[in-house]
């Protein structure tokens, strides 16, 4: 009988099968190692390549006095790995760990315990608990972790659950000051607006990196290469902005925003010789440390109202859909309208028309004109703002009266081509070149007519600043050219760039774009503009001793973007001072004021206020005219130690009034102190008894009073008033502002600054 089972065959076959399978696997290995080898090698290397960014610290932003406007500081963020808690197998330990973490983190990070509890119950491996914590808090958390890890009884492994990552936070010490200019950074540290955006690459520096071989846990593999590229710290910027000037501008404008109930107000203070921007404000603005919150109460209430509206209500009120989104309001508060907004400059533009006419030799100061209240030109009937007409005028009256027919006539003499030359020369068809985000790109055919399409009818409107749009920055740059002798400058905000050691790496050089008019023309227009403020529509910008020159403007807004059912206007004033040697130019724009809407009534007083404060801050000497001298200033004589009669004489010589308090013979003390400036008919209070008690008086309300009424009341109360603003035509000016509020208690003899403005002859 044949062997029942042939083991030889079976064993051999089984061996063959195993060998075949082994061969198949060897083939598979050959495929993986020889064919796909390079691919897998690349994958291996890329996953083992640790490329860690070393963040460069962002440069600081300073104002022109080296006050810090923006600075980066190290902060930390705390996260937990909740899945590690949930993985603890021993239930008692798990729950203890959870409770320790909840109470510890909630206390140290000032968070709600329930919130932290929710975090610990998640099943992620990364849960951010709190970002942007300071060093003390971080140290406290590290101590907390150590405490539980090192305790003898039942230590908890907190360090594998709680983690702390370094982070950077940008601080803005002045919060909202110059917020629309400076801008802010996003969570990735890149600038999102303003200077932070425009100079992002400069401020950011170059991040370095460490390149290492990493193991699967993400830590460095031993004995492998490591290459470090150092980070290059960000460059710091010194701005031309001066926080004091910025404060002044912001104070004045924010009060105006409240008083006029305008949508926006914005303004610029520029150094005329260089184009350096000393102050730039756009309101409403926002808190740089919290840019995503809507700061303005008005904006917030608009948002709440509109976002609650139904679709029908929106259509009914002509409100675009986008206004229901919060981001719309954020963009509103972030935008620097002094640069990005466009408006019709209105009569302010007559400065350019006048300058062109003089420069081309078509007019001189003896030029005469008769305004009958309107002019028919190029098939159009154009009214003057004073429909009764200005009658006979000299060249000076063009700007002073802001006469439209006169401007149209001058433009006609220039003709479309030459007029357009000046329109271009003054920079209205090009970017200003300012070094920040949002520099307006004037779009031909949209904001202004192209040269080919520029008709006679356009010429007429353009001559008095209508039917085209400019940005406030373009306008102030053009007016600065008049102030500085005809040079159109490139405006700029950054004066210096500093490296990490504080060495200057770049210094801004004022750039003259071109000479647009001759010095003599410029001088003549300056004189003209001074007259506007001295006696014309700009008289509310008048500042005694500072020879303010300027021009008012009022324009109707074509696109009305608000809920007020009235026509909307833009009131503006653009000017400079001192007229005899201009230092600063100022533009103020009040966008949709409620009530008065003339540039002379609304914007000019603000400009005057700003100019006065800024020039005083800059230390520019007052240069009073004879008229002003009469009205103003006297210095308080030193009366201390004098006998009462001598003191009376000394005061009498200066036409001042003396008020003696006490029974003594000699003056012990006086108020105001010697050397302080007083109004020429002011009062000095002297005390004669050693045990005197300073008298106080309550400040009366001066608003609405004329200059003489205010003077009388002040004297009756034993107070001095310093008159600010328009005061020459004293019959028609009224006080609108006082430096110390009514009802406050002050020293007898205190000097109160009362600002006056007029409502007459300032309609444009």
């Amino acid at each position, binding site marked *: 009988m044949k062997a029942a089972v042939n083991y030889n065959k079976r*064993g051999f076959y089984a061996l063959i099968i195993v060998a075949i399978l082994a061969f198949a696997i060897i083939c598979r290995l050959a495929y993986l190692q020889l064919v796909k080898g390079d691919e897998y090698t690349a994958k291996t290397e890329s996953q083992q390549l640790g490329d860690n960014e070393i963040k460069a610290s962002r440069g600081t932003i300073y104002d022109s006095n080296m006050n810090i406007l923006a600075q980066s500081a190290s902060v930390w963020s705390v996260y937990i790995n909740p899945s590690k808690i949930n993985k603890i197998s021993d239930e008692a330990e798990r729950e203890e760990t959870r409770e320790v973490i909840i109470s510890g983190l909630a206390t140290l990070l000032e968070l709600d315990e329930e919130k932290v509890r929710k975090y610990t119950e998640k099943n992620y491996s990364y849960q951010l608990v709190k970002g942007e914590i300071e060093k003390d808090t971080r140290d406290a958390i590290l101590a907390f972790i150590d405490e539980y890890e090192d305790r003898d009884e039942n230590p908890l492994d907190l360090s594998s659950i709680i983690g702390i990552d370094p982070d950077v936070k940008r601080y803005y010490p002045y919060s909202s000051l110059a917020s629309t200019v400076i801008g802010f950074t996003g969570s990735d540290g890149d600038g999102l607006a303003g200077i932070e955006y425009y100079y992002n690459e400069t401020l950011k520096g170059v991040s370095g990196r460490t390149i290492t071989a990493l193991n699967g846990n993400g830590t460095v593999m031993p004995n492998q290469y490591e290459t470090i590229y150092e980070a290059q710290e960000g460059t710091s910027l010194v701005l031309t902005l001066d926080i004091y000037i910025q404060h002044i501008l912001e104070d004045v404008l924010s009060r105006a925003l409240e008083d006029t109930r305008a949508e926006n107000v914005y303004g610029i203070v520029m150094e005329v010789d260089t184009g350096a921007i000393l102050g730039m404000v756009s309101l409403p603005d926002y808190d740089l440390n919290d840019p995503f919150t809507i700061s303005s109460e008005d904006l917030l209430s608009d948002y709440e109202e509109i976002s609650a509206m139904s679709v029908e209500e929106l259509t009914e009120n002509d409100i675009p859909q986008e206004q229901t989104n919060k981001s719309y309001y954020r963009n509103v508060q972030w935008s620097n309208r002094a640069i990005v907004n466009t408006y019709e400059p209105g009569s302010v533009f007559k400065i350019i028309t006048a300058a062109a006419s003089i420069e081309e030799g078509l007019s001189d100061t003896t030029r005469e004109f008769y305004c009958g209240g309107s002019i028919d030109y190029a098939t159009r009937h154009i009214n003057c703002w004073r429909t009764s007409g200005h009658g006979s005028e000299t060249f000076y009256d063009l700007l002073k009266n802001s006469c439209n027919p006169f401007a149209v006539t001058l433009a006609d003499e220039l003709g479309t081509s030459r007029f357009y030359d000046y329109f271009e020369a003054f920079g209205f068809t090009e970017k200003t070149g300012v070094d920040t985000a949002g520099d307006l790109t004037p779009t031909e055919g949209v904001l202004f007519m192209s040269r080919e399409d520029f008709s006679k009818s356009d010429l007429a409107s353009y001559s008095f600043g209508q039917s085209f749009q400019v940005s406030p920055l373009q306008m102030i740059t053009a007016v600065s050219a008049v102030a500085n002798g005809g040079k159109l400058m490139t405006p700029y905000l950054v004066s210096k760039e500093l490296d990490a050691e504080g060495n200057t790496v770049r210094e801004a050089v004022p750039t003259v774009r071109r000479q647009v008019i001759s010095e003599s023309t410029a001088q003549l227009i300056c004189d003209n503009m001074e007259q506007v403020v001295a006696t014309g529509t700009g008289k509310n910008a008048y500042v005694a001793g500072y020879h303010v020159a300027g021009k008012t403007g009022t324009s109707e807004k074509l696109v009305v973007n608000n809920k007020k059912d009235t026509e909307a206007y833009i009131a503006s004033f653009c000017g400079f001072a001192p007229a005899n040697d201009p230092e600063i130019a100022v533009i103020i724009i009040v966008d949709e004021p409620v009530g008065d809407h003339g540039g002379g009534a609304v914007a000019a007083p603000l400009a005057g206020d700003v100019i006065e404060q800024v020039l005083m801050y800059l230390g520019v000497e007052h240069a009073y005219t004879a008229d002003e001298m009469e009205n103003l200033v006297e210095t308080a004589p030193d009366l201390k130690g004098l006998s009462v009669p001598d003191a009376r004489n000394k005061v009498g010589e200066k036409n001042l009034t003396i008020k003696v308090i006490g029974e003594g013979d000699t003056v012990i003390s006086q108020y105001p102190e010697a050397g302080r400036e007083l109004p020429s008919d002011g009062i000095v209070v002297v005390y004669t008894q050693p045990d005197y008690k300073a008298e106080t008086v309550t400040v009366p309300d001066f608003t609405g009073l004329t200059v003489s009424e205010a003077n009388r009341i002040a004297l009756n109360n034993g107070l001095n008033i310093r008159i600010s603003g328009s005061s020459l035509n004293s019959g028609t000016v009224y006080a609108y502002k006082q430096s110390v509020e009514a009802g406050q208690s002050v020293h007898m003899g205190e000097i109160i600054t009362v600002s006056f403005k007029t409502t007459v002859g300032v309609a444009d």
Partner: protein
Amino acid sequence: MSRQENGAASFVKSMWHRFANYGSIDIWFLIIVLALLCTGLVMMFSASYPYAQIMYGDSTNFIKKQALYAVIGIVIMFAMSHIKSDFWRLMMPVVSGVTIFLLLIVFVLPQYRAGFYRWINLGFTTFQPSEIAKFAVIVAGAYYYSKYHKKMSSSKVAKGGWAGLVNNKIGAGLIKESWVPTWMFCLFFGGCSILVFLENHLSGCILIFGIGAVMMYLGGVRTRWFVIFGSIGIGLIAIVCIYIMATRDAEGTNFLKGYMEERIVGWLDKDYDPRGVRWQTNQALYAIGSGGFFGKGLGNSTQKYMYVSEPQNDMIFSIVCEELGFAGATIIILLFILLVYRGVVIGLNAKTRFSTMLAMGLVFQVGLQVLLNIAVASDSIPNTGISLPFFSYGGTSLVMLLAEMGIVLGVSREGKLKKK
């Protein structure tokens, strides 16, 4: 041998005479075993030291223990080689009984790892009863097929025993004589594989099933049955794969355990990687691939630095491929083939049919495990945890393996193979 002597001593003495084996061993087999063991230890050390350093602060954490077990294993191997194979034939009922007992007892013992019943914790070490089960299946297979080998080519209907009873009950001719050992054997190894499957130990189940099939083949079950059942099996696997891929996103359609299904999907769809199912496989592939032809050199793997998880365990071959390259990996595979070949030669020259099947079963078990392990590491089959004999870390399984090699050596002592 006198009955008057001390009972216990006389028993030992009688056992000694009955089972001690003084023939000479097959030196080639021994050389191959030692070569694999040494290579395995070196590679295990190389693969494990970064992991040991990072996880235990001691780079020799694994190699220390493994080396100790290797020494113990070699001693046991030589001891085993002195036992006659007939001992194991007689011990078959004991081995089977102990196996079933151990496979059952894990269900009531505390779980060593949550959800898994496969370990028995001895305090100083753990071991898996499925290791014993594999051995028991080999012994049982060798037992039944050698005992009934004469009937394997018979086409008669079974008359005697339980098979005869069944035939009489249902009507003549249902169970043939040649089926009897297969039924007996299937009952045992089928039971073992079901128990191991219930222990949540799929890889152990597959191995036991595979070893069972090998034993049946060696035992003379007709080839056509392997063709028929093999085709059905492959068909079923294909259907299961297609079903799983089709219903992968649907809820409540999985009939396999979640992790099994995920691994199958991960194998078929190389981009499917929720919760890092493919992490381990991908890292192994990166390691294998980046080895190239000659490898990065011994000790120079970078993938063992926490990329290949637990590189000393199931995925150790990927580190071997990375360090020794295609050349080294091929040599090691050939060494394993040589081991199987030599085992087969020893088996064919064995004294009894039982020892023939015992030796061949043991070496084919090693071969099967090697094939499956490398197939997993190279992503040729879905990921399942099968260790690589001689290489993977694991004290008890190394001792067990060396003991089994000792048994093969024991068979070689009795054989007619020409010794050198």
